[in-house]
């Protein structure tokens, strides 16, 4: 039994959820996006802490950093990162609701899901609109 369990077949069992054959649904997409944005936010801490370091090192470093993130690629990354922050926070609040037993019905899950997507996009737009002003 142990040998069968340890055999190649069981060691390489496909992982659930079976992403290759999965039909796209708001529920699963948001669950995956929550994880992806979580990883993105983790990696983004490098940018944030380097920004803080440049602030501490002096004006030359700080201006150089600002110059980098003001470029087209830099702006795109920062706007994407802002969205990741908004999405992960709002979807996190949705998760907290579930933890306390709220919004678990399928219709509620779908409504709150779309609400999270829309409001994260609106929040990102407002933040960047205000920063440009």
């Amino acid at each position, binding site marked *: 039994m142990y040998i069968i369990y340890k055999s190649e077949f069981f060691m390489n*069992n496909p992982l659930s959820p079976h992403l290759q054959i999965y039909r796209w649904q708001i529920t699963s997409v948001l669950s995956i996006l929550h994880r992806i944005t979580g990883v993105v936010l983790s990696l983004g801490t490098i940018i944030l802490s380097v920004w803080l*370091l440049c602030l501490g090192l002096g004006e030359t470093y700080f201006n150089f950093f600002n110059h980098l993130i003001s470029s087209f690629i830099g702006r795109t990354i920062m706007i994407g990162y802002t969205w990741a922050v908004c999405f992960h926070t709002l979807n996190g609040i949705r998760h907290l609701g579930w933890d306390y037993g709220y919004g678990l019905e399928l219709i509620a899950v779908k409504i709150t899901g779309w609400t999270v997507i829309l409001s994260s996009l609106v929040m990102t737009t407002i*933040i960047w609109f205000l920063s440009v002003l």
Partner: protein
Amino acid sequence: MSNSGRKKWIAQKYSSIALIPLIAYFLLKILQLSSMNYEQIITETGTIWFLVLVLIFTIIGLFHMRLGLHEIIEDYVQNEIMKNISFTGINIFFIAILGLVSVSVLLIFLN
């Protein structure tokens, strides 16, 4: 061991609750700072309570990050060696970012 999943879930839940007001505060703060020049930003961020708040945010945020990344690795990495390498990598990342932020906070305070 049977209790570890539950403990992680609770820790993840409470760290996320703590992070909501912190995220809201720092989003607004960065928005406010974005319209300032270097001198103004230094005066604004150079206070002890602000820098302590940055450190608290960093520690809770990294703690939350570590739990979340562990969960992802436990779900998708089957190989035990790879799993342990990943966990060590996360710990190194945790310490590196905390170190970087601590040094920065000290530099800003002394500025």
